[in-house]
């Protein structure tokens, strides 16, 4: 007879409460805890067994683009193979340690030269992966230092091309690039601080041109300034090699929105193109029979008067006299 080892239910074990010994550790744990509205995603940049010059440049460029919310590892990691089932444990461990949910893994091999794997994690487990070949990378070209974008500014994005809608791999890449570069989701934005643009163009069904440009706002007649793009920073050509979509159940779980955050639709309010905001007011049926009348005892008085005049013995219509009890002084 084989008895399997079962963990005893939590009520039966002697337990001890462990809290961090310093408040700082407490605060760090709070930062990493799951929240309703999440902090911005951090990125982990690392490379595998062998990298080429191009790949090194690309990785450092991406790190500089996302300086304040990314971590770059400089050592090589031989045992990471993102697309294989066993080769992800190291990645997941690093993701747990550095609290990074995005990673960019570069590797160079004869079969896949200049390979970049961009991946996301959910709950520190691999969610999805996109492997791209960095076809050609141009390092930052010369530009006027004054217009260089600041670190951490919220970027504009432009996705051009029907490939981003039709081809599944490009759709996936679009999502991943958006996630990678968009920065923190903010509810209020300072318009003076907008200075960078990422332009992604789907040149063919598997090739994407990615450029990073600085933004200059020029005066125009109206309140909206004229936008001018100056190419700054890295521009790369991506050729999508392989990708892995998340499982359906995992995807469903990750896409869940907390019920508190779903904005409730205002009832009976609609917007019209011509009239603007329109509301509907419903007036319920009026119950004429049950309506409470205003208190005018005129009718009662009249009835009483008539009854008195008739001289009938209508006790009910007589005025009720106040009962004066004997109140002792």
């Amino acid at each position, binding site marked *: 007879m084989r008895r399997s080892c079962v963990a005893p239910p939590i009520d039966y074990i002697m337990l001890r409460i462990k809290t961090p010994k310093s408040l700082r550790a407490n605060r760090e744990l*709070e930062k990493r805890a799951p929240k309703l509205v999440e902090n911005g995603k951090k990125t982990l940049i690392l490379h595998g067994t062998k990298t080429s010059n191009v790949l090194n440049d690309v990785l450092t460029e991406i790190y500089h683009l996302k300086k304040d919310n990314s971590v770059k590892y400089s050592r090589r990691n031989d045992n990471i193979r993102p697309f294989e089932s066993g080769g992800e444990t190291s990645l997941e461990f690093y993701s747990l340690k550095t609290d990074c949910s995005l990673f960019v893994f570069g590797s160079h091999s004869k079969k896949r030269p200049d390979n970049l794997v961009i991946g996301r994690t959910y709950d520190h487990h691999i969610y999805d992966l996109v492997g791209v070949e960095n076809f050609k990378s141009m390092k930052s070209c010369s530009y006027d230092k004054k217009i260089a974008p600041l670190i951490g500014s919220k970027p504009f994005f432009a996705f051009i091309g029907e490939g981003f809608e039709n081809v599944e791999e490009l759709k996936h890449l679009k999502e991943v690039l958006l996630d990678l570069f968009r920065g923190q989701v903010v509810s209020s934005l300072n318009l003076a601080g907008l200075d960078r643009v990422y332009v992604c163009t789907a040149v063919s069904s598997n090739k994407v041109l990615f450029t990073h440009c600085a933004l200059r706002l020029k005066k125009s007649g109206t309140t909206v300034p004229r936008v001018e793009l100056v190419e700054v920073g890295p521009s790369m050509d991506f050729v999508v090699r392989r990708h892995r979509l998340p499982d359906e159940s995992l995807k469903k779980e990750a896409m869940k929105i907390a019920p508190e955050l779903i904005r409730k639709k205002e009832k009976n309010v609609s917007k019209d193109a011509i009239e603007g905001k329109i509301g509907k007011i419903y007036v319920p049926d009026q119950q004429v029979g049950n309506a409470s009348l205003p208190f005018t005892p005129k009718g009662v008085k009249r009835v009483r008067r008539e009854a008195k005049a008739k001289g009938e013995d209508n006790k009910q219509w007589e005025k009720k006299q106040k009962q004066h009890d004997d109140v002792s002084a």
Partner: protein
Amino acid sequence: MYKFVDLKRFRKPLFRKQIHRRILCVEKSEMGEDEQQEGGYQIDLGNLTAFDPHHQFSSVPDNREDLVKECIAHGTKLIQAVADALFNLPSTEDASGPIVSLPPPSTKLPREKPLPKPKPPTKWEVFAKKKGIQNRKRDKLVYDEQTSSWKRRHGYDRVNDDNDIPIIEAKMTDEPGVDPFAKRRSEKKQRVDKQEKNRLHNLKEASKVGALPSHVQLAATALPITGTQTAPRKVSKDELQNVAGMAATSTASGGKFDKKLAGEKPPKHEKKYRKFLPVVEGSGMGSLEKQQSDKILNKLMAKNSHEILNVGKAVDMYNAKSDKKRRNQQGKSSSTSSKLKVKKSPYKNASKKKSSSKGKSK
């Protein structure tokens, strides 16, 4: 008696359902907040993104620089569209620049961590809800009459500190010989222990649901013994009674004179000492009397008989054993002499087997 209704009030005829259309505010037409279609581009304001799903490259320019220029030119158009939408949002002026409040992004991206689970209510919260106790905010400073100064409520040099009381007056209910200071201290200790127990209970409840607070971990102080395959379980009352009963019957007097703890029941014993067969046999049973006598007979005969032998089974066993021996001898060339080999036990007589009475008719 009749009611007089003033008909003046009800002059206007009423329709069944009157719907009044009111224009609440006349504004510039807003087509939608997050996603707009402007000139064929889809704009996601929350992410400051513009998608152009209809663009096609009729001819890819060979030169990369030309391609880049074309892309940037096209990108400029898209960004202009986003900027239009963005700068048209109502903005508030600030020292560093105009601030707009962005709508939430419309492209859905996955979360990085699972949604936090709601905490189950603690024991106190359940009690407070039941009784309708409201939580009141208390001041940090309390006025102390004795020193006529403001002292803090908790912490160093607090109001109503237990240790500061120099004299405790004796009451009528006090027993002589009981130290009231020690009593106070022990009461406080009890209160603190109870609170700790409640806190542990609340955390256990939370961890069952998966809603443990992030800075707390529950660590096991005693690990289950891994040598045995089962962990020490909490023994139930019935189990304890069974075990006690078994221990009791193993005594010479059957547990009748054992010292019992308070609340322990005397050992159970059916009053029946003999088992009698039913007078009338049921339909589904074989002849019970026959079975009973067969059982006794077999037991007696098997012990004393040397002739009862299942020949077929004995032959099979012998064959199997010799096959095994041959295989072993072929497998390993025995280097050890037969004297050093493990001798089989001389007491075991394998060929003798008791016959089973199952299915055998006599």
